[in-house]
């Protein structure tokens, strides 16, 4: 053949003279604002922190004195712990473009399994506690199996299992609250997450350091559990292959499959993990209220999704972060606490929460925009 390649060959002759060298558009102008912008652009997870800070500043004026007290910050932290843990579970699911409407009820069910098995049925806590964790894991696993094997929308699946787990909860708990005193007697370990530590005394007593600024600041093990859960999941999402697969599965599931990711396995793992984390939240919940209240947790779904979305994670999957969720939960906690302290009428507190949520996300978006 002689007429094959003439046309493009003619064009490509130009290539022979080409000089190598990487294109470089690097930009020299780096003033303060520019550097700030670049920082935000490079670490977009820092943006929600700024919003949180703004919120804190506002409330330190709206509820002077009380709001800024170290003790109050301890409270806020304790108040958001459970939603933050559920938010971590929810983040995993939402990153895969799913949604889990059953996190709240899984948490309650797991707390009932832990508490009731130990207190009412007298099973040793060494067995009851893992059993509760297993219950959470099993619920999540069921969600994952249905989502992947029947190829149903996660919304429907978890709406269905929400009813199902809720019924199981009523059935197993008989709607009976377990009191703190009974729990303390039969299974004090389950209350451990509620134990309070005073960092000030800790440093003063064990290390002889007088860290005055820590005075009044109390912490409980539940908050530490939350931080550990968040750190582990952060690590998994950002530093392991599984994490990449989670993002890819949510970003464009078809592309992920074509690229050779077993999206089904990834999803099952995600839902199971989410269920397990809910069971950990159950443990923290028991610590927080000292016992088990089988009617709690009904708004936990919406609250956890709210924390996730305020934290900047997209409901369409593939984009978001654990840190965002923690800060999202904190932002809502700060708003609610600050408003409660402000003495505003309940009705106008609700109004203000609505406005503040919208404003917070607006500021977040606005900073993102100017930083890009």
């Amino acid at each position, binding site marked *: 053949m002689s007429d094959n390649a003439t*046309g*493009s060959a*003619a*064009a*490509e*002759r*130009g*290539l*022979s*003279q*080409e*000089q190598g*060298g990487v*294109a470089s*558009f*690097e*930009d020299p102008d780096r003033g303060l604002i520019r550097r700030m912008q*670049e920082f935000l*652009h*490079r670490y977009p997870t820092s943006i929600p922190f700024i919003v949180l800070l703004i919120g804190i500043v506002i409330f330190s004026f709206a509820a002077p004195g009380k709001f800024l007290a170290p003790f109050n910050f301890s409270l806020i932290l304790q108040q958001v712990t459970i939603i933050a843990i559920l938010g971590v579970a929810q983040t995993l699911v939402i990153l895969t473009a799913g949604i889990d409407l059953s996190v709240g009820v899984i948490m309650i069910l797991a707390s009932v399994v832990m508490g009731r098995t130990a207190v009412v049925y007298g099973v040793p806590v060494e067995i009851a506690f893992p059993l509760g964790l297993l219950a959470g894991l099993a619920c999540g696993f069921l969600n994952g199996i249905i989502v992947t094997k029947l190829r149903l929308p996660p919304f429907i699946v978890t709406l269905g299992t929400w009813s199902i787990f809720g019924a199981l909860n009523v059935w197993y708990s008989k709607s009976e609250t377990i009191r703190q005193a009974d729990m303390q007697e039969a299974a004090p370990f389950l209350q451990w997450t509620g134990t309070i530590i005073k960092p000030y005394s800790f440093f003063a007593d064990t290390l002889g350091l007088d860290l005055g600024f820590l005075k009044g600041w109390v912490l409980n093990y539940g908050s530490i559990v939350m931080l550990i859960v968040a750190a582990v999941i952060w690590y998994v999402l950002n530093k392991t292959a599984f994490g990449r697969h989670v993002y890819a599965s949510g970003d464009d599931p078809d592309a992920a499959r074509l690229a050779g990711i077993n999206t089904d396995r990834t999803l099952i793992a995600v839902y199971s993990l989410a269920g397990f984390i809910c069971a950990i939240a159950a443990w923290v919940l028991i610590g927080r209220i000292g016992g088990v209240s089988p009617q709690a947790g009904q708004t936990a779904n919406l609250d956890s999704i709210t924390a996730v979305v305020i934290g900047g994670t997209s409901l369409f999957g593939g984009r978001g972060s654990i840190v965002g969720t923690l800060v999202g939960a904190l932002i809502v906690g700060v708003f609610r606490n600050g408003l409660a302290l402000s003495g505003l009428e309940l009705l106008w507190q609700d109004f203000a929460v609505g406005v503040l949520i919208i404003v917070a996300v607006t500021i977040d978006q606005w900073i993102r925009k100017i930083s*890009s």
Partner: protein
Amino acid sequence: MSADTPSVEPALKARALNKRYGRVVALDNADFDLMPNEILAVIGDNGAGKSTLIKALTGAVTPDHGEIWLNGQPVAFRSPIEARNLGIETVYQNLALSPALSIADNMFLGREKRREDFFGRLFRTLDKSHMQKVARQKLTELGLLTIQNINQPVETLSGGQRQGVAVARAAAFGSRVVIMDEPTAALGVKESRKVLETILRLKERGLPIVLISHNMPHVFEVADRIHIHRLGKRVAVINPKRHTMSDAVAIMTGAMAPPADEAA
């Protein structure tokens, strides 16, 4: 600089367009001139900034700096709608089709035809059969004969068929300027030929056309002038009659200095 002092007013002109994304500079003081009733080819390496240039010209992206004139009037499009309302029709590289909508719906998206009768006037009923007929006809003109069902969702089309739909749309509705970003990339030999014929036909209708393409034979076949883009800016505008393809590629890749008289 010859391109800066044309005897006639350019149909579409831009000066010193800049666009950066974080630390990536996509447009770096880019200039642009499209003369009336010419076919202007825009060539350049992958990532040179051609698509960004087009998007800046049509309001799909807001440039950080820079000015744009349409037929001598300064314009600042805030959205592609404004550009389209002024008659600028664009085939974007990512095609801008709604995957779940049918071929016919996509062709007429944003300029649906209402029925002419009572219903159409009172209830704004769409004239679906008319739109389907026209859509089918436009695709046939482009030689896309393997499309079996005009109500097929676009997402079920093959890569080339999808591109055909986007090209057919622009060709059918462009009234002032038609811009095509790699319109033949996914097309077969026959279909590409038809697109080139379409471009020539548009020119006959008096329209100026911008054609972005990596296919040098196509470019040299139809272009009146060739805008060479490199590292975010226009480095030269050459006359295809006076330069070879290999010159163009050499300028594009930086192997050759732009010709002095035609440097931008």
